[in-house]
């Protein structure tokens, strides 16, 4: 990858608030024109990192470069970034038009040109005719769009979004996600998006950095994060993951034999470097990759016995929680509700067999 592909480069950045390491020695690059998400639970440092990019916080150590320029001495008002705030921060004393034109003063464009840009921006956010409204006459979704337009008319090299959809209800949030993605493609600006909502991150982003306790755990595409997480924390933060502890036995041809206590041994595929025999590992399987049956399945698949403990109904699918000896948490099995099932609770307490293909499981470091 050449230097020109990266718009943002974060080099061993740390931010300490007293004894708290909000961001802890983090390094990664963000590519030009990509939709990049910082995902993690609240307090993981994602917002602090975004504020460091915007210039509202200075890193305790490390350096951020944006488009090749080191940023440590550049104040927020001189950075090629603009931000959409979580609270939207629409100026209450200005109307929509004046809000959107706020950042244009310095460009000295003249009235007609400013009006044209504002009109275009209103067009982009699908709010033509709303120019004279004041912020208290707008709905949450509309304020969010105005905040977006206000930032975009400044033509930033990077747009920073701090949980912009957090305050919207579910329906509106889904609409805005699609719209946000379309706008990003239209304007072609790099978006750095902070969210704690994993579904939102998975649908929107080109790449996602999963953060926890100030560290970046994994940076990858949505599919890779879901199908090939690199640690237990990522696996459990994104979707649901069933975990079986075991120990690596024989390894050959990309397959490992994993001993799992009383359940015997399971076959698993090893991604990348083969682990050494004797290392403790975790076998991780997604709920939809587990099959449930009354009879013991054939020997070509991995299988273990359990008892249905509870059923959770989600409409299109149900999760069956199967208690298995030696597992701290019951294993979740997702079944599509292909037929109308008016009651699933009659299955509770029944002994069942769970099985999965060796390729379906991921081996994670214990």
């Amino acid at each position, binding site marked *: 990858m050449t230097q020109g592909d990266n718009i943002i480069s974060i080099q061993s950045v740390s931010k300490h608030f007293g004894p708290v390491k909000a961001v802890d020695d983090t390094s990664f690059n963000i590519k030009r024109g990509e939709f990049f998400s910082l995902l993690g639970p609240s307090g993981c440092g994602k917002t602090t990192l975004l504020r460091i990019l915007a210039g509202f916080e200075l890193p305790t150590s490390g350096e951020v470069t944006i488009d090749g320029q080191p940023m440590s001495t550049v*104040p927020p*008002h001189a950075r090629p970034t603009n931000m959409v705030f979580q609270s939207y921060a629409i100026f209450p004393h200005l109307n929509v038009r004046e809000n959107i034109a706020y950042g244009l003063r310095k460009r000295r464009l003249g009235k007609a040109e400013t009006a044209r840009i504002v009109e275009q921006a209103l067009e982009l956010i699908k709010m033509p005719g709303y120019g004279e409204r004041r912020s*208290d006459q707008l709905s949450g979704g509309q304020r969010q769009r105005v905040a977006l337009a206000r930032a975009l008319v400044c033509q930033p090299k990077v747009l920073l979004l701090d949980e912009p959809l957090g305050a919207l209800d579910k329906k509106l949030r889904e609409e805005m996600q699609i719209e946000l993605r379309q706008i990003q493609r239209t304007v072609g600006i790099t978006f750095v998006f902070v969210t704690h909502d994993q579904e939102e991150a998975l649908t929107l982003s080109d790449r996602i950095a999963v953060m926890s306790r100030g560290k970046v755990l994994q940076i990858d595409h949505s599919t890779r994060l879901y199908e090939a997480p690199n640690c237990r924390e990522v696996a459990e933060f994104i979707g649901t993951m069933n975990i079986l502890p075991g120990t690596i036995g024989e390894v050959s041809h990309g397959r490992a034999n994993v001993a799992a206590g009383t359940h015997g041994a399971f076959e698993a595929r090893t991604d990348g470097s083969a682990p050494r025999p004797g290392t403790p590992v975790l076998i991780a399987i997604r709920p939809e990759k587990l099959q449930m049956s009354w009879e013991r399945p054939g020997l070509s698949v991995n299988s273990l016995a359990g008892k249905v403990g509870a059923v959770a109904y989600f409409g299109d699918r149900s999760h069956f929680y199967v208690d298995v000896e030696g597992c701290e948490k019951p294993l979740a099995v997702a079944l599509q509700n292909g037929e109308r099932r008016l009651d699933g609770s009659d299955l509770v307490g029944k002994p069942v067999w769970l099985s999965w293909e060796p390729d379906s499981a991921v081996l994670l470091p214990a």
Partner: protein
Amino acid sequence: MVRLRIDPATAYAIFFVLFLYVPVLLIPLFSFNDSTVATFPMKGFTLNGYRGMAADASLINALKNSLMVGIGVSIVSTALGLLAAMGATRYAMPGKSPVMGTIMLPLVVPSLILAIALLVILRQVFDIPLTLWTVAAGHVLVCVPFSMLVLMSRLEGFDKGLEEASNDLGENAWMTFWRVTFPIALPGIIASLLMCFTISFDEFVMAFFLSGTDQTLPVFLYSQLRFPQRLPPTLALGSSILAVSVVIVLVSEWLRRFGVQSNKPGAF
């Protein structure tokens, strides 16, 4: 038969309002009375008091002094109060509460004590002659805490993200103040100006101790009360001031409400 029933709380409220305002209303009433003593029964209607007021050069001079001091004090106090309020609401700093406490102190220290202390410092320590400037300085000391309280409540209400947003949109701290902070705080600033003016205009103790040959209105009025024939112009002046004060209070209250409404966060 209909019996008029008044519930005790209402009766108390009526009594309370009468007790507060009837004495005040006697002043405009007697200002039209054709007599040098303010007692009932009234003698007859006259505007002589008002004529005497307009003709009295020393009274007009005192009024001018008070207006000058009042306007200057309100501007200086509001500027200082705004800075203090911004410091108090925007920044975390060590020793913030003792500093705030020190600014608030003139609210609780009797103004007599403050006035004597200032007099001693000005005359004995620095040997500064007593002028309207010294009166204004004393008034600023008393007005700043009021101004700060009014402006703090205004500034606390608004999202700090707004100033960050302005900063993010390319404006430095100075322009952010003029384009965001100042217009949003404006109703509070006007309320503070009016309040400081009223306090200064009305203040007696500081002005009594700290004024030299140029007197402010309250000090002048006090000196006039010794002469019975000076009473009618004094009453006329009192009534005029009362009328102006009522207008100022109504305007500032209207502004405060306007401010509260425009600062209301929109419905989500």
